[in-house]
């Protein structure tokens, strides 16, 4: 059992200082309250014959003194807390940028060079790292206890979080905002490596290929090819050359098959069903994430490009 958390980042040391300050104030006040209470409870218990005369009813002097004392201490703590907080909001300009995409129950990290990792973040030591984070579904929270930093990750909006790790080692990464079933499974490791080891790690992990290629892989992996491939048992509209052209819908209107329409049809297929087709396609919302969606759309767009207009 360990009762002490290593401070592995510059921000951690400052926040630890504040925590110790708060702890000192709390123990002082607690000692005062529990001490006085125990003293009075023993000294002035019911049958103790102690002299209780000269009751000072003028409480005004006491009230003002302990009220101003509390106000001053609290104001000091407020200033101390906000000064450190403001520094957490100002990432240095030369910070190493890393993209983080949170989706229901996993962290997808992508380095500028295209290296991708799941539920893990490799960072060089003693270099400021700025995480640019977004979520694909609900609100998550990127929390690294060892760095004492935490930031909610909002869907469709980018939040930044920066830290400067100064101790090697592997530290816990938690999701700290309840996000559904396996919220407790959405954990990972932050590996702080020497600069050279980090450079080697970057080269060995190589880089992915174009979005459309990845979309093609996803098209089969998610089973779309089964129906839309043209040779399956279920009758489904062919997607060759559909991108950008008008699509007649079952409710009589026609709609242009743009990005939004394709994404909506994947997430809520029963809403705009193509004319003369049955609404049998299952909804993929919660199954296909935001960046996979973008790759599928890129692939479907590439299908239209091949067919001569």
């Amino acid at each position, binding site marked *: 059992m360990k009762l002490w958390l290593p401070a592995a980042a510059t921000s951690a040391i400052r926040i630890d200082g504040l925590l110790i300050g708060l702890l000192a104030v709390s123990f002082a006040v607690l000692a005062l309250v529990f001490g006085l209470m125990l003293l009075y409870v023993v000294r002035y218990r019911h049958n103790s014959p102690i002299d209780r005369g000269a009751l000072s009813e003028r409480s005004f002097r006491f009230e003002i003194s302990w009220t101003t004392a509390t106000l001053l201490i609290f104001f000091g703590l407020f200033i101390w807390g906000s000064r450190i907080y403001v520094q957490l909001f100002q990432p240095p300009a030369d910070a190493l940028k890393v993209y983080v995409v949170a989706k229901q129950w996993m962290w997808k990290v992508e380095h500028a060079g295209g290296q991708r990792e799941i539920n893990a973040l490799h960072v060089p030591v003693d270099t400021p790292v700025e995480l640019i984070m977004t979520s694909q579904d609900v609100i998550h929270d990127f929390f690294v206890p060892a760095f004492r930093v935490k930031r909610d990750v909002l869907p469709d909006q980018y939040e930044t979080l920066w830290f400067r790790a100064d101790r090697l080692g592997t530290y816990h990464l938690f999701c700290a905002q309840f996000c559904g079933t396996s919220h407790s499974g959405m954990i990972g490791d932050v590996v702080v490596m020497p600069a050279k080891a980090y450079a080697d790690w970057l080269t060995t992990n190589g880089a992915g290929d174009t979005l459309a290629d990845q979309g093609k892989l996803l098209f089969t992996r998610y089973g779309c090819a089964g129906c839309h491939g043209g040779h399956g048992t279920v009758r489904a509209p062919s997607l060759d050359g559909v991108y950008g052209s008008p699509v007649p819908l079952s409710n009589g*209107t026609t709609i242009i098959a743009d990005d939004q329409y394709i994404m909506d049809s994947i997430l809520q297929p029963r809403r*705009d069903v193509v004319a003369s087709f049955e609404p049998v396609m299952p909804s993929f919302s919660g199954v296909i994430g935001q960046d996979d969606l973008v790759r599928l759309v890129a692939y479907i767009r590439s299908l239209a490009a091949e067919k001569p207009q």
Partner: protein
Amino acid sequence: MSDEIAPHVHFQYADARHQSDTALAGMWLFLASEVLFFGGLIVAWMFCRHWQPDGFDAGARETVLWIGTINLILLVTSSFVYSTGVAFIEAGDVRRLVQCCLITACIGVLFLGLKFLEWYLDLSEHLFPAGPFKITGGEAGGARLFWSFYFVATGLHAVHMIVGIALVGWVAWQARHRTYSANWYTPVEAVGLYWSFVDIVWIVLYPVIYLVGRT
């Protein structure tokens, strides 16, 4: 000690005036809580309009302005008629009070009729935020937000109107059975407070829905 306490005074009150002031204060306190209830809606309006100004105003331009304006005048008139009724009962004229209540209730029903007509027009133009929506493209998000705010706000106001009309009808029914007189008409005043409050809600909602988007 006044042994003959007015017929309607409950046992925990000293006299009729004590009870009537208490009842009116109670209604005012309830209206304070309603102010916070609609206040939360205004916070939603401020947030949505702040984040999606263009889409929001695009949606606002689709509202049926003439129905909103007529409804404003109708409600203001109904408040006037009802408070005239209160003035009559203060003078003891029960018959006039019943007439004023019925006129107020009719104006209320007319307001609701126009409101349902407006909703029908909106729905037929696919302005309900869920499902196929009239405005597409960049401003669709903000317009959907406006129209969801519109339907929640006018829906809540309509519910308050229906409760108001029922209360006014109840007052008219009580007045017809001689329960009110010059020195006992607290329920009439309390319902008047509620009715004027619902009128104030519409007075505030009217520019927020119809006008701010149009300039």
